[in-house]
């Protein structure tokens, strides 16, 4: 592999860069602090809004690549029949300062939404069934990640191989080196970005890379959430050691709020429905949905294959951890972002359940 090109970006230059981006791009997204003190990824209109210090906020990059509510197409019923409007303008965007775990989740989404199983004639086995909305949005955005010099209190990306620094999968990765960022370019798109704003970027050097490697090693020692037992837990799960009683125990603590799933950057399920906006015009949309809700699988006959909460909890962990799924897509369904740990009122988040699972006999 050719030696990676690195640059530097003085923190003092960031406001100017953001100002330029706000002019040249339709949208700039960055972590901002809300009134209650939580951080979340949001569209900004000034560099001042960017949260300087933050642990990955609620609703990370998923909010951009897979919006909670999205139009699939519009329809209009007229005298000469129904017409569909299926092309939407997808804005050019820059996603600034997401954490490596979130970037890893986007990379997983790329393979999920970008590919998928075949269907229909003319589709050969294994051919992709790409989601056109996702693909377009992804294509038109540059993703700039900010590596974590310090792990958040609930983070465990080090156990899921999705942080605290990335070696690939980003357009640009920034590392905080005090007064400036080290800038690593990870894709042609990232390279073009640096070229476009070359007056703001300085050259990087081998010393900065050395420092970055040292920071990575140090960051790996700052994790407080001890969850390095994935492999063992997964073996127990696939070995049939985790029985229904286990899931009933988990379900006993779960209030079925679906919070863990909404905040999870790896969860992608959605509902589809239509909405009329007048007598003749309407739209079809999708909205986040979760396997945690009883209605997710309940059929019109009333038959529900996953009627109990224990079955639904089992489903969620199974989808994320079972080797069966890894065969379909070789990454586990968790990037260790710790959001479910922060969110779950019953404390039966990924970290806890993996710990319990590892201990089953």
């Amino acid at each position, binding site marked *: 592999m050719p030696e990676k090109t690195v640059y530097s970006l003085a923190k003092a230059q960031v406001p100017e860069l953001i100002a330029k981006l706000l002019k040249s791009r339709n949208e700039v997204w960055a972590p901002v602090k809300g009134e209650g003190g939580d951080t979340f990824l949001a569209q900004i209109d000034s560099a001042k809004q960017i949260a300087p210090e933050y642990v990955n906020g609620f609703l990370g990059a998923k909010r951009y690549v897979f919006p909670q509510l999205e139009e699939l197409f519009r329809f209009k019923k007229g005298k000469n029949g129904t017409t569909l409007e299926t092309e939407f303008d997808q804005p050019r965007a820059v996603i600034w300062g997401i954490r490596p775990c979130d970037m890893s989740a986007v990379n997983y989404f790329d393979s999920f939404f970008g590919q998928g199983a075949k269907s229909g004639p003319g589709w050969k086995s294994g051919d992709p069934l790409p989601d056109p909305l996702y693909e377009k949005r992804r294509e038109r955005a540059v993703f700039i990640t900010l590596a974590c010099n310090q792990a958040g209190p609930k983070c465990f990306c080090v156990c899921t191989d999705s942080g605290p620094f990335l070696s690939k999968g980003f357009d640009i990765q920034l590392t905080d080196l005090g007064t400036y960022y080290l800038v690593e370019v990870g894709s042609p798109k990232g390279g073009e970005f640096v070229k476009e704003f070359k007056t703001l970027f300085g050259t990087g050097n081998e010393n900065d890379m050395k420092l970055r490697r040292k920071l990575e090693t140090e960051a790996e020692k700052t994790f407080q959430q001890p969850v390095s037992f994935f492999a063992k837990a997964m073996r127990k799960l696939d070995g049939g050691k985790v029985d229904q009683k286990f899931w009933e125990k988990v379900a006993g603590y779960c209030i079925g709020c679906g919070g863990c799933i909404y905040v999870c950057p790896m969860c992608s399920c959605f509902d*589809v429905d239509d909405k009329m906006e007048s007598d003749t015009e309407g739209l079809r949309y999708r909205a986040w949905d979760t396997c945690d809700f009883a209605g997710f699988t309940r059929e019109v006959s009333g038959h529900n294959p996953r009627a109990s909460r224990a079955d639904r909890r089992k489903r969620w962990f199974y989808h994320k951890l079972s080797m069966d799924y890894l065969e379909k897509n070789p990454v586990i369904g968790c990037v260790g972002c710790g959001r479910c740990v922060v969110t779950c009122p019953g404390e039966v988040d990924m970290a806890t359940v993996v710990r319990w699972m590892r201990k089953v006999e």
Partner: protein
Amino acid sequence: MNPNIYVPYIAEITDIKQETGDTRTYDVRIKNRDEAKLFVSRPGQFVEASVFGAGEAPFGLTTSPKEPGVMTFTVRACGKVTNALAELKKGDEIGIKGPLGNSFLDKIDSKGKDILVIGGGIWLPPLRSMIDHIFNNRSDYREFTILYGARTPADRVYKYQLSDWEKKTDLKLIQTVDVADKDWTGNVGVVTTLFPKLKLDIPNTVVYTCGPPIMIKFVIIELLKLGLPEKQIVSTLERYMKCGVGKCGHCCIGNKYVCTDGPVFDYTEIKGLAEEAF
């Protein structure tokens, strides 16, 4: 299929037949000629049909297609989309996404084998596409038996067809109902009560089944007891579906997506999933 996996073709209802009180059969044609050419279905596949404003729902195609862009499916009115479909009349427009899913033909090659089709209630329609295919290629297959069970005689779909099939010499059709009425002369009891009437050449029989989960469960138990090899038991599965294209997650059973890995499975694929398939 349309390159945008969420966008349906605009299609026209060309005919409607009332099957039972709440069930109707729709003949449908994709309007745009170029789009129609892209729609070539195989037995077992399904479509997502849209009533714009009400949403979309999956329905199994019931015929082996004669020309591209033309299809037939049977719908029981029981919810938002299906009730909206029940309001429509000949000439009305709907949306069609598909054909979706795999085919009976993707499973075991059943040419030269005895064929046993076991259907329950409103689940006969998806099987009819395979039945149609067998009739169209009758010499490829040997003994052909259909078992059809319904709750009551009135609940049976395709009654006109059933009486035709009964007259056929190259097909044995046995019907049963859970509850008879005064005109019923046939068998009374669940579909598995018909098994003792069959003389099966076990190693050379392929079974295609589709029905309510509880029926499939017992049919498979009985077939396994008879010694039928697992690969020779082929069933369609049903799950609540939203997208039909492997993205929304609704139809998963274990790691299988019914919409894209199925809806047709053989028993080796269904057994041992992390969740009960039926």
